[in-house]
């Protein structure tokens, strides 16, 4: 094996509001059957990486539950397999992880006990499909110290990202984190390839200086000293940053090209197997342009929506442009439009929940209305 994988949880954001009150972003349900982390985990496993560490800190219970068996990603191994690290308190370190670099440093024995030459560091909150082997080849061909996977966002607003200025050989010249006035439209996707021994040395150096962040203290600080290259990624890529992107990502799955990419084309995205029966369409069901997860029972109308597993919709209910998560129950004669209903929500008979595209209604997990 050429590389080990590290999946970071992708930071804490308040912008996802109630949806992340009790779960880590990598555990966010996406695309009718998946959790956000399934995409990166499957990319790792499909790229032949069979030793992966997931480093988690905030609200990790739902994520730990999801990862309780590694076998679904073919990572239930004697050799390597899946490691999950969450912070613990020790006498010399009473803190949680103080930054992305600290999170890896505090689990540095994982790196020291490996003998794979490379490390792929990725983030568990991103939706994309990638063969990391291509990046590894590129990294070796460029004789790079660090390769950052990047994407040209063209006309999109990039002020919330790390913006990269590359030379014509794709070598990094400047890197600005969340710039007010971006100088380029190329952003870092926060996915890195680096030599394992170099990573160990950098981590030990910066942490001893009281620095804890990959972007500020490694990428930006070492941008001239190290050979850092950008690897341009062309395919579909989204990061779950806000309610808006969360809603849009789910709706993207209704587009044929996105659906084909994630649901049909080899290699497949894997997720925890749950044994739901087939979806049942009772008399009166009317479903158009929607994604439906296993075990759902449909009695009403559903249009342009993403329904996760085990959703129940009552007679004469009408659901449009909404994301309905696992185990949610919608009674008879309900009208739901532009809403995100978290898991196990109960909507009583006759309720109306009408949001707008800009401001969808959000009901948190387990709400009863």
């Amino acid at each position, binding site marked *: 094996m050429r590389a080990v994988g590290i999946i970071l949880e992708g930071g804490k954001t308040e912008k996802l509001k109630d949806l992340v009150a009790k779960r880590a972003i990598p555990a966010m349900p996406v*695309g*009718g*059957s998946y959790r956000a982390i399934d995409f990166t985990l499957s990319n790792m496993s499909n790229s032949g990486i069979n030793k992966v560490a997931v480093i988690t800190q905030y609200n990790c219970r739902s994520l730990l539950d999801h990862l309780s068996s590694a*076998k679904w990603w073919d990572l239930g191994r004697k050799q390597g397999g899946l490691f999950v690290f969450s912070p613990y308190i020790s006498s010399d370190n009473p803190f949680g992880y103080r930054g992305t670099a600290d999170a890896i440093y505090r689990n540095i024995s994982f790196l020291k006990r490996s003998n794979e030459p490379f490390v792929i560091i990725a983030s568990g909150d991103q939706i994309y499909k990638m063969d990391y082997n291509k990046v590894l080849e590129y990294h070796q061909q460029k004789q790079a110290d660090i390769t950052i996977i990047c994407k040209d966002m063209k006309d999109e607003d990039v002020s919330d990202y790390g913006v990269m200025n590359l030379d014509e050989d794709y070598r990094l010249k400047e890197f600005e984190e969340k710039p007010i006035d971006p100088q380029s439209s190329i952003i870092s996707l926060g996915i890195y390839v680096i030599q394992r021994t170099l990573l160990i040395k950098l981590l030990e150096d910066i942490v001893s200086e009281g620095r804890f962040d990959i972007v500020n203290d490694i990428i930006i600080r070492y941008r001239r000293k190290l050979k850092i290259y950008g690897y341009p990624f062309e395919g579909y890529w989204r990061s779950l940053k806000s309610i808006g992107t969360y809603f849009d990502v789910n709706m993207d799955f*209704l587009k044929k090209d996105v*659906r084909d990419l994630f*649901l*049909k084309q080899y290699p*497949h995205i*894997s*997720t925890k*197997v*749950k*044994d739901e*029966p*087939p*979806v*049942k*369409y*009772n*008399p*009166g*069901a*009317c*479903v*158009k*342009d*929607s*994604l*439906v*997860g*296993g*075990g759902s*029972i449909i009695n009403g109308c*559903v249009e342009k929506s*993403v*329904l*996760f597993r085990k959703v129940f919709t009552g007679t004469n209910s009408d659901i449009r442009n909404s994301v309905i998560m696992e185990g949610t129950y919608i009674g008879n004669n309900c009208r739901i439009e532009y809403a995100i209903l978290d898991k196990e929500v109960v909507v009583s008979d006759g309720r109306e929940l009408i949001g707008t595209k800009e401001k969808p209604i959000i009901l948190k997990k387990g709400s009863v209305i």
Partner: protein
Amino acid sequence: MHKKEIISMLLAGGQGSRLGILTKNLAKPAVTFGGKYRIIDFALSNCINSGIDTVGVLTQYEPLRLNQHIGIGIPWDLDRKAGGVTILSPYVKEQEGAWYSGTANAIYQNIKFIDNYNPEYVLILSGDHIYKMDYSKMLDFHKKNNCDATIAVLEIPIEEAHRFGIMNTGEGDRIVEFEEKPKNPKSNLASMGIYIFTWKKLKQALIEDNARHEDSDFGKHIIPTMLENEDRLYAYRFRDYWKDVGTIESYWQANMELIETLPNFNLYEEFWEFYTNLDYQTPQYIGGEAEVHRSIISEGCEIYGTVINSVLGPGVIVENGAVIRDSIVMANSVLKEGVVLDRCIVAENCIINQNVKIGEGENIPNKDKPSIYNTGISVVGENTTIPEGIWIGKNCVVYGDTTPTHYDNGRLESGCSLILEGVEA
């Protein structure tokens, strides 16, 4: 030495010849049911849900698909350090090889496997029934009555009793007599082919019977002999859904019953799930022009046409303008634009090309196999291709990579078969 209180032996070697083309290349327990399941999933899931973690699966007829499906038992949580699932196929012994010649003979040939777990009790199951049963309750009954053997029975209408193995019972449901398909039935308790034996007793009976009968069988030999010996045999009454989907019509009917708003056999119960081996968990997509009602549809399907009153397996694609009515379509089959299916069973991995119509015309029984195909249902065997625009009637069978030259004027009249033999693609 291992010690398991009870282990299960699952007989999965039967061909199920009355299922016609559906069991051409696979054993009946491997035939799909209810969209995503295979028939054997029900017995395997019942085992693990009843707390039985050691299962021997006896295979013989076309075992390949079954072996692949079961693997090391991961979907059923039957991948265990001690026990778990083991496929037991007939093998060559010192003198000669021997097929399983009867149900009891199959168990006889695996005495060593059973002894390895040193069990008190052995549960004998058949891999071709659809039901939900807690075997631990049956075991409690067996222990309470201090039985040598307990046979699960179903109370059936007395007028149908002549088609079953019937148990005549005395006090406390102790079995006094067993009659196989009696002309004048004395009771309505039909054997379900589910037995719990006290292993010591069964082992002795198997060894003795094997010396007498070459095709040692539970119904024909073991049970009658034990009754003669006045062993303690009891009937355990089971009062829930149980179905032997032995014929094309009953297979179709049992699938269709799942569609009912409140079906007799409920797959949606949270604490008695059925497990199956499916490598993907993809959601299904229902297109903007699609119409789906009264149907159950499995993972990864893409529906752009109309599906009414049908059961679809995983990964089925129904293109624009196709109309599927009262039909069963199994995994990964593609129904192209304008296809019309009426009362039809399409097996796995078929390609039905544009504007093919199946299931119209007169209800004439199949000319070659009238006893199998006679209720108007046409069947398309697995990996079959049907070229564009073909018209196919009722009670037809199609199998193989067919081309327009195989059809007269683009038609296959009701009651006709088109079966291309040869190497499988």
